[in-house]
């Protein structure tokens, strides 16, 4: 009796040990990358946590500050607004690319002559250098001489102040973000469409479903996991958006488009307030982590159901 119980346990143990030894053989392959990751990713993290509980401006002495940097955020209106703005910007910068990206994926999933070239042109915005793109958009947004207001007025529409007014600056930046990142959503969803089985479609067509019904009841549920992956990636990237905002509006007019990332840059590299900036980094990272986990949670639930 005893031996029959012990034997499988022992076998499992030796199997686990063999597996560990097998895995250990491959450690030398991973170590160099591990060193780099520790040096440029983990070290900065430890350092940031350390600095976030200190009062430190570049050029002056460092003193322990406890939670002062964190409590300061609670009363810092500028920080609070930056959080809200970031969430507002992110919500729109996820929603629009997602909607357009799904539509684009459905179109590019069809077979037509010239598809390769059309797809390449479509993904150009996400590959191009963001600073270069941002400069061109800035010139197009010019209120008097910009080509966009010319197009609006020739269509009989009122001109827009684009990034030169507090009311329109964030929607305008979302437009650039959507232009730039819809292709990534398209590619992820397109990858999903390519992996779908054919049978549900044949069944739906036999049942007499029209194109829209097939999309809504067959295609969309099947690619939903891919849509959610795209949503997670888009969410992370939108929270972190920096280049285009920095170049096009630089947080302005006033602070109307100052997102967390822009505020962070100012605190660290214009005001040299390293302690406070480090605390903002910690909170910013927690925010990104929460949004990521939330979206992953939805993804898991969608996969289970």
């Amino acid at each position: 009796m005893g031996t029959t119980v012990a034997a499988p346990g022992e076998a499992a143990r030796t199997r686990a040990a063999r597996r560990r030894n097998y895995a250990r053989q491959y450690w030398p392959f991973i170590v160099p990358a591990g060193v780099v990751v520790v040096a440029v990713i983990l070290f900065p993290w430890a350092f940031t946590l350390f600095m976030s509980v200190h009062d430190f401006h570049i050029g002056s002495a460092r003193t322990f500050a406890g939670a002062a940097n964190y409590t300061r955020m609670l009363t810092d209106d500028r920080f609070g607004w930056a959080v809200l703005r970031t969430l507002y910007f992110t919500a729109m910068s996820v929603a629009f690319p997602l909607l357009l990206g799904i539509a684009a994926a459905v179109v590019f999933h069809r077979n037509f002559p010239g598809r390769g070239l059309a797809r390449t042109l479509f993904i150009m915005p996400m590959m191009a250098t963001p600073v270069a793109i941002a400069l061109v958009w800035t010139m197009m947004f010019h209120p008097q001489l910009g080509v966009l207001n010319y197009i609006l007025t020739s269509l009989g529409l009122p001109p827009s102040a684009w990034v030169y007014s507090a009311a329109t600056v964030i929607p305008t930046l979302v437009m650039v973000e959507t232009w730039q990142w819809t292709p990534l959503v398209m590619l992820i969803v397109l990858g999903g469409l390519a992996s779908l089985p054919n049978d549900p479609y044949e069944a739906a067509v036999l049942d007499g479903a029209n194109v829209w019904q097939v999309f809504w009841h067959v295609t969309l549920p099947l690619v939903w996991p891919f849509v959610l992956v795209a949503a997670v990636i888009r969410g992370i990237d939108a929270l972190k958006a920096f280049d285009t905002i920095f170049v096009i509006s630089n947080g302005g007019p006033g602070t109307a488009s100052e997102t967390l990332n822009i505020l962070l840059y100012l605190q660290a590299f214009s005001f040299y307030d390293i302690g406070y900036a480090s605390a903002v980094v910690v909170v910013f990272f927690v925010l990104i982590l929460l949004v990521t986990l939330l979206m992953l949670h939805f993804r898991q639930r969608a996969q289970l159901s």
Partner: protein
Amino acid sequence: MSASTPASRRVRRVLARIGLYLAVVVLVSPAVLVFLWMLSLSLKTEVDNMAFPPVFVPNPPTLANFVQVFEKNDFLSYTLNSIIVSFTATAAALLIGVPAGYGIAKARATRAAVLILVARITPGLSFLIPLFLLFQWLGMVGTLAPIVITHLVITVPIVVWIMIGFFEGLPSELEEAALVDGATIWQAFRHVALPLARPGITVATILAFIFSWNNFIFGVVLAGRETRTLPVAVYNVLTFEQVSWGPLAAAALLVTAPVLLLTLLMQKEIVAGLTAGGVK
């Protein structure tokens, strides 16, 4: 019953085709038009660029803006900086990342893979504050080394992530046969797995290079006057020293042209790499 006559079915198919092409045009034109406008701005004289209503087609096109970019700025040395930074950061990432991808795939070290993902979600600025202070303390600010090192934050995760996926997809029989024949695991990697992984390495190289080339935030913080990469130079120097649109558009075009060319030439590899893991 008229709906099913061959003639009306053909009409419907033609209409569907037209609808499809219309959709393609609507989707592609925002992308194309912005790049065409950049080209148009770069080829026009200052008078035409400031005209309202705008002049759409340069007539006659002029290369004066491009000449001015090279004459008035140290554009060549910024280009050289960008080339050095992106090539070094990509080469180092391949050297470190390809074996790491192999090791992680073979040992199924999922925890190591998660660490790579953490690098993906962390905002660049959070690496930059500590690294900036460290480089300052080491007296390295003002050289290209800090920029190359920070670009590893971009290139290493891309390479590792793509290579994990690639090595996981390779059949392991060949390496096992080599191991049975007495090869070391290093030899099995070097002579069996690595040659098979060449397509994956190509994809990883292109993407790592592009995202390093495009990077702005690391350079804007760490670059000194002499060590600006192209995106930083275009933003810093040109926007402040000359506000005219022609040279600015010409410089923007020059900065992004290598990337756009790579995308056109290698679109299949790029699409494969980006869909593999939604990296960036």
